[in-house]
């Protein structure tokens, strides 16, 4: 089953076409990296697939449901690049994580909130920061707070938009370890990245965007979960126009459905 499916997606914002004819199929359990330079449309793509930005034409489905009122919001976790813009009032880590329990028509956290929040904070090792103000934390701690907010509802799909922006290498490694554990537990992961770095061993597939179009698709683990000796090593973003259509040179078993 597809966790995320985008078909013939076009997105226009303020009259400018940001995404052109994008097709993407992320199957359950996969780890997919969306790569590309700044302004290539990576973040727009994931934000469109999560319903934050409306599609101009085309179709987006999450777990087989069109994005909208029927979307299983409880199954989706989203980690934006940064803590939200609205932070005029001090907000504790616990409050941010608790807000992740609200989704769809669930407007109250419920009785089990305390235990769920504690478990999510423990999963990313921030339980000791629960009562700290988020804006006083380091970049890595803020990032883990946002991940805990996404994890608190136990999502089947976790989407992370440039999760390592502004973080140092030890933070990359810690985050990669956390994501590995989540994926081994069955969580589908979609990562928006500039480079694979510490996440390379996790990735099943990559798609590369340029100018709002997918120009390149690569499979590292064609069998889904296990690395293969026939995996294609191709972990860089082409600095130049790709000389050929990947469909021409990928082995048939590595060609991916859009």
């Amino acid at each position: 089953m597809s966790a995320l499916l985008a078909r013939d997606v076009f997105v226009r914002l303020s009259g400018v076409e940001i995404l052109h004819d994008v097709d993407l199929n992320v199957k359950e359990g996969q780890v997919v990296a969306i790569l590309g330079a700044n302004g290539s449309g990576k973040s727009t793509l994931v934000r469109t697939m999560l319903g934050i930005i409306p599609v101009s034409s085309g179709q987006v489905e999450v777990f087989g449901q069109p994005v909208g009122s029927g979307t299983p919001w409880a199954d989706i976790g989203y980690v934006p690049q940064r803590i939200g813009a609205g932070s005029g009032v001090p907000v504790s880590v616990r409050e941010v994580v608790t807000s992740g329990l609200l989704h769809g028509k669930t407007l109250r956290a419920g009785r089990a909130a305390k235990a769920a929040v504690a478990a999510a904070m423990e999963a990313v090792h921030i339980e000791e920061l629960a009562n700290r103000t988020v804006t006083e934390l380091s970049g890595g701690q803020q990032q883990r707070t946002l991940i805990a907010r996404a994890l608190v509802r136990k999502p089947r799909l976790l989407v992370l938009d440039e999760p390592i922006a502004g973080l140092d290498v030890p933070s990359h490694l810690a985050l990669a370890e956390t994501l590995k554990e989540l994926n081994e537990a069955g969580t589908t992961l979609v990562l928006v990245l500039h480079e694979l770095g510490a996440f390379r061993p996790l990735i099943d597939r990559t798609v590369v965007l340029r100018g709002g179009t997918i120009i390149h698709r690569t499979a590292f683990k064609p069998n889904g979960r296990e690395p293969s000796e026939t995996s294609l090593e191709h972990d860089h973003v082409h600095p130049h126009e790709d000389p050929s259509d990947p469909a021409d040179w990928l082995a048939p078993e590595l060609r991916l459905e859009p």
Partner: protein
Amino acid sequence: MSELWTALGDPLLRAPLITALLIGATAPIIGTFLVQRRMSLLGDGIGHVALTGVALGWLVGAVLGLVPRDVLALPGAVVAAVIGAVAIELVRERGRTSGDVALAMLFYGGIAGGVLIIEIAGGTNDNLVRYLFGSVATVDTANLLITVGLAALILVVGLGFRGALFAVSHDEEFARASGLPVRWLNILLAIISALTVTVAMRVVGVLMVSAMMIVPVATAQLLAASFRRTMTIAMAMGGVIAGIGLIATYWLDVSPGAAIVVLAIIIYAVIAAARAVMQRRAPRRSTTPPPPATPQEPVIAKEAT
């Protein structure tokens, strides 16, 4: 001390005091959400629009021959403020650049419309002064009952939907990605803000209405480390300040609204100064205690102190 008890027992002070306490305690609930989303001046904007509503209520009262003529002023203010607040929210949703200009038009149009309509209704600008600067001393039992009802509604919505309104105010993009009814929650907040403004308008007037919503929150956030605690402290502080400010006018011949606002600002200044001194004396607290998994993380954001 005996004079204080005499003042508190004065029937003329009772209704205004209850009104001031209720508004002082409930206005910061909404103010906390507005400060959170960096829209502290929204109350001012709504207040300007409410003035047109006051004048419209006056006009309708004059046309229908109602006595007193301003009997529909408060309902008019509520209707105009709600419409204005929802319009402001829809403009904000559509984009900030053009929205900024549109909001300015709405603010200035609101106050100019109020002056024009009151003159058409046969009144004078003096009739608007009590709404510009407040008139809590003239609150009667009927006004008090309306205030109690609206304050209860603000409490129910502001506290009952606190989690959802916090989620939308703190990170609207995440709220959208969670499928929360962002637009409806924003409109709910706009409507409840409009009701707060029209109720608070009676105490401090249109020109200072935002102060009751915002200043206690600004003070509370100097003392608290969480959203919930900020709101709780602001509510307590708002009620106490409104009460003290009003009681002070029993002896001082000054406007209650101005007394309340000035007192709130003095308290903010004192606490801010004391906090700055304490921070200077205290050893600098590290913002980056290295956790086991990720030592030596860089600080990428630090709250301005």
